[in-house]
């Protein structure tokens, strides 16, 4: 880390994640080494003891995800970090975190299957691969600054909604150095889970108010809560009543769905009068922005919708773009995944064009510009 001034640092993407976690109040990290995510564990293993936090290197990714769930149940803000191959192993734990409403943050540095190359391989896995019904909150940063900022945001969202939150980093971002600004403590708006205030005998641990998020006890504070994957009622007791099960997952998904507009981070660039929109996430948003700027210089009314939060999916937002423009281009570093969701939400109101690239690099602005021109 090169210190440029008190606030500005020239810093590795993976280190920015670790610093974001520390700024957010992370007190526990468990991980297993994997390229290109290992520097997150290296950095945070050094940093956590400085802030009364604890680190453990586990025997595998399953160990890591359950260790952070255990830490969270004991009251700590907790995180793990891995790359695609290790992320596969964590899905069962993500499902457990959903079912027990345990806040955790998972950083998945996407890498090509079997190779350390840039990709958007896991955009659908991050959303769907945990078994059973769930909503997932997935943030897709496009810069080292966003790796830092979104990691902080991920903790806030996890704590607020009692849900796993995934930061979907990328090979390129994770091992890239950029200048970033560290947030001063007074600028940070940190959120911690709401604690129960009623006496232990009165607590109904999975009963929620209007926001759908029950206050969360911690082990040792006298509430004696049971956390189980099994269908459970408001008291947390295992039940065979599938009406109760149905209600449980309606609440668990609705608590996030109802706040989609608030949760989804997005930025619009030249969208006011756009006739062609690029919808991009992650590092692709960087070339997309440059392509839009160049298209405007050529007199083409192009605009960019950059999604910082790719899940939950903001149907109304995409629909409103589709209502406005004639064509939506979705550049991705895979064979075309997220474009399917954009197409669905566009509801045939615009022509949705997939711009896939599955060769371990991001699109150049030339390539996206050609697609905007209709040459691709």
């Amino acid at each position: 880390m090169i210190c440029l001034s008190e606030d500005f640092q020239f810093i590795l993407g993976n280190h920015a994640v670790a610093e974001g976690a520390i700024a957010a109040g992370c007190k526990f990290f468990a991980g297993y080494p994997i390229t290109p995510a290992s520097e997150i564990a290296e950095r945070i293993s050094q940093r956590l003891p400085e802030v009364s936090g604890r680190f453990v290197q586990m025997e595998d990714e399953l160990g890591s995800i359950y260790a952070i769930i255990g830490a969270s149940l004991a009251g700590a803000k907790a995180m793990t970090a891995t790359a695609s191959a290790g992320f596969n192993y964590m899905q069962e734990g993500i499902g457990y975190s959903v079912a027990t409403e345990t806040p955790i943050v998972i950083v998945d540095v996407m890498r090509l299957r079997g190779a350390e190359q840039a990709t958007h391989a896991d955009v659908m896995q991050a959303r769907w691969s945990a078994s059973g019904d769930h909503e997932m909150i997935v943030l897709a940063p496009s810069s080292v600054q966003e790796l830092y900022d979104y990691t902080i945001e991920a903790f806030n969202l996890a704590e607020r909604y009692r849900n796993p939150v995934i930061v979907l980093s990328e090979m390129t971002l994770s091992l890239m150095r950029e200048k970033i600004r560290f947030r001063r403590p007074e600028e940070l708006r940190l959120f911690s889970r709401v604690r129960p205030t009623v006496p232990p005998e009165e607590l109904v641990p999975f009963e929620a108010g209007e926001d759908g998020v029950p206050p969360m006890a911690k082990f040792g504070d006298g509430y004696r809560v049971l956390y189980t994957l099994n269908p459970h009622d408001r008291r947390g007791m295992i039940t065979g009543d599938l009406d109760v099960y149905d209600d449980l997952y309606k609440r668990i998904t609705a608590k996030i769905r109802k706040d989609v507009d608030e949760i989804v981070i997005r930025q619009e660039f030249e969208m006011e009068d756009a006739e062609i929109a690029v919808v991009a996430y992650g590092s692709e948003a960087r070339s997309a922005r440059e392509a839009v700027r160049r298209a405007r210089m050529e007199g083409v009314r192009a605009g960019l919708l950059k999604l910082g939060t790719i899940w939950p999916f903001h149907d109304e937002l995409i629909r409103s773009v589709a209502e406005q423009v004639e064509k939506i281009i979705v550049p991705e570093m895979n064979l075309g995944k997220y474009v399917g969701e954009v197409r669905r939400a566009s509801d045939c109101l615009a022509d949705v064009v997939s711009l896939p690239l599955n060769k371990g690099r991001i699109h150049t602005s030339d390539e996206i510009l050609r697609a905007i021109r209709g040459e691709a």
Partner: protein
Amino acid sequence: MEHPNIRRLKHGVLPHMFCPGCAAGQITNYFIYAVDQLGLDWDKLVAIGGVGCMSRAPAYLNANAIHGIHGRNLPFATGIKLTNPELTVVILMGDGGTAAIGGNHLIQAARRNLDVTVIVNNNGSYAMTGGQVSPMTPSGATTTTTTRGNLERPFDLCKLVEAAGGTYISRWTSAHPVQLINSIKKGIRHRGFSFIEVVGQCPTQYGRYVLGLRDPVSNLRWLKENSVTVKQAEGMAPEDLEGKILVGDFVEKELPTLEDRYLEMERRMREAR
């Protein structure tokens, strides 16, 4: 009259799902006795189960509890203990969760000397799923997935945990209630990785199909008759010990726990400041 340990169960959980005569009910009962005889605060106790027969027990206890993931009990425990070393963490699980799917977690937690107590109900099979072969099923035994006899050898779990670094290791059967309660008390009191294997009867699967004993009492009698204490074994020839269940304390030693080492590192950091 109500059983005195009913008050340690969450209100309204009964009936439990253990089969009549299952060792899991006994072990849960012995565990409650041990905790109460030690006078521990149930508010500061975390019971961790997984999936399986024995692993269901924490779901019944009026305690802080985790249930529902097969074999991952020890990673949960690692996160809990490093976050709050003051909590007493007890793991209740079966031989499948311990020796198969959670086997690596078992040896790693023992190596770290994590300050937890693991109580394993070894009934020699996957009982909940229909009596399939487990890493604790004896060679040659007929199960639903070894209809021509088990081709594999079972673990000696206590030796495995000893080699991995466990610091209190003991084995009893469900037919040794007093010894087992004492052993659980010792395990909980012990600072470090405590491992207690309980060879428990399963009249529904292992007892019925492997031993040919359908009723719980004859299963318990079989356990008692086939157990040999460490002391008795001293005077016995190796061939006489073949097929016997060696019971007693095997390891008891004081070594720094992972939590101790962490606190020590933090102390050194404070001093260096």
